[in-house]
């Protein structure tokens, strides 16, 4: 009953003249007769976009752990149902939530695109391995689905202003590198990765500009010493990870970042999982702080 009422309200608000919304996804257009009310997100980057729009998703593929979404974003949203792992979300749970829009990742979920479309209109966008620019395009697409392009364009302009201000504050061409570390190894996020994009957005450089093929590069300490970043951020998954064994090595202190005490352990959820404008602004803030310039921009 409530759903019918809300649907009615929406129709009233937008008027009968409102044409259906058409959004171009990576694998095809999605047509929405009305702004969606029950949205599920199959990647964290879409949660960021939804939070920006003020829409709470009813379901998120959060790998079974809602805390994987960073607190500032979670604070803006209602609780959601977990859909299982991002690589193989449970289509049963998605269907049981009766969504009217599914936002999926073209890399992970292309194989089940048809099935998702059977459940609800599915907007399939770039997420895993996306660049900073890809993300802004994807965010705009998400806004289109809700008929809020103008609001989002405004928000993006605001985001650009914030990032410009940070960039002006940073005003440096130092090399900055982000990596995630797990028990099985260390992966650098290269210039193609989202974190690399945020670093470049602030006018900072990558120590491995030649890595344009893959977004995430598994490395050994030797490669890290060669890359020799001026600033090095690491997000650890677990208590004892591969980067801890690097620290025992005499070469660790040879790295410029370590020598100058510019090695920072940061939140891998923020830097690797939650790609989006909200995260990017927090990341930029952390970078500004790390690079020694005081107070964040508005």
């Amino acid at each position, binding site marked *: 009953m409530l759903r019918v009422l809300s649907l009615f309200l929406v129709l009233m608000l937008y008027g009968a003249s409102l044409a259906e919304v058409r959004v171009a996804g990576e694998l095809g257009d999605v047509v929405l007769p009305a702004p969606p009310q029950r949205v599920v997100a199959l990647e964290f980057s879409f949660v960021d976009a939804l939070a920006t729009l003020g829409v709470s998703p009813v379901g998120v593929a959060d790998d079974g752990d809602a805390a994987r979404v960073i607190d500032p974003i979670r604070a803006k949203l209602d609780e959601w149902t977990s859909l299982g792992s991002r690589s193989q979300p*449970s289509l049963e749970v998605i269907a*049981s939530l009766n969504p009217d829009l599914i936002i999926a990742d073209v890399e992970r979920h292309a194989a089940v695109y048809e099935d998702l479309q059977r459940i609800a209109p599915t907007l399939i966008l770039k997420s895993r391995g996306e660049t900073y620019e890809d993300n802004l395009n994807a965010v705009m697409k998400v806004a289109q689905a809700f008929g809020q392009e103008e609001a989002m364009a405004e928000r993006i302009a605001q985001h650009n202003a914030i990032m410009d201000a940070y960039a002006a504050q940073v005003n440096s061409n130092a090399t900055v590198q982000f990596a995630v570390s797990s028990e099985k190894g260390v992966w650098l996020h290269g210039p193609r990765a989202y974190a690399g994009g945020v670093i470049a957005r602030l006018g900072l450089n990558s120590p491995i500009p030649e890595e344009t093929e893959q977004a995430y590069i598994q490395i050994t300490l030797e490669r890290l010493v060669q890359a020799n970043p001026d600033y090095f951020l690491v997000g650890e998954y677990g208590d004892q990870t591969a980067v801890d064994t690097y620290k025992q090595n005499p070469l660790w202190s040879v790295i410029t970042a370590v020598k100058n005490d510019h090695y920072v352990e940061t939140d891998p959820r923020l830097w690797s999982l939650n790609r989006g404008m909200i995260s990017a602004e927090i990341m930029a803030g952390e970078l500004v702080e790390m690079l020694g310039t005081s107070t964040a921009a508005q």
Partner: protein
Amino acid sequence: MTRWLPMSVTLMAILLVFAAWHLGFGAVNISPPELWQTLVHGQPDYEFILYGYRMPRLFIAALVGAALALSGLLVQGVVRNPLASPDILGVTGGASLAVVGFSIAWTGASVVWVPFVALAGGFASLGCLLWLARPVLNQPASLALVGVALSALFAAAIDFLLTMYPLEINSSLIWLTGSVWGRNWSHLPLIAPWLAVLIPVATFLAYRLDLLDLGDEAATSLGTRVGWLRLLALLTAVALASASVSVCGAISFVGLVAPHMARFLVGYRHLPLIPVCLLLGAILMVSADLFARILMPPIELPAGIVTAFIGAPYFVFLITRYKHW
């Protein structure tokens, strides 16, 4: 002979029980009355979960299991080797390797080609096996040994390719272990027509394979063209196995275990063995996919891992029981 009909009916009933279990349980549990409501009265609540998700998986698992089991039966009948099956002889491994190589070399290629690539890979690996093992074709254990070594080589090559050219994770899991995740109605045409054509072929071959059991000379004297029979049966078996691979990847041990269980139930004649074997293969695969889904929901295991849990110990048991070393 007389036992196959009641046995088939019993197995059909078991398959139906597993099918109902498969449809009713998972990350979302559907109670029997609700299941009934949805199936019979078309109630829309669980429409997608049943018709869009579990039912296609159920059918694909059942058909793939049946195809692998029949393939195993034919292979065992032809090479008269209880330790043979398309996966032990490297046929599924070869088909998988061909598809992995194909999808890495032509990233944008249409899935329409996959069954044919798998088929080519399956035939090529069968050719390799027969050529490498030509002196020992009549020695079951030795043939199995060459097959095992061949499949180890294919598995190593797949590992190598997947490390050097990472695919998207779901495809990788399919080629590493075999999986039914993300399979839907659109994959049904990749397997169903093969079964529709090849089951009659297998039925046609059944009586002749019985003659083959009497020995080549006896079969020849009864008017069987032994060489052609062997070739046709092997081609049928490889086609069935390759079709399965093109849908679910290299599912292991179903093709080995199902024919043995079938022989245990209804004896050694091929005609009654065929329906029993098809049903047993379907039951094995459906139950594997079921347990893969309900073990730790909503996280799923690939079904191929579960069939290995059932199949590998059984294979070891077969080896300890095998008397004709």
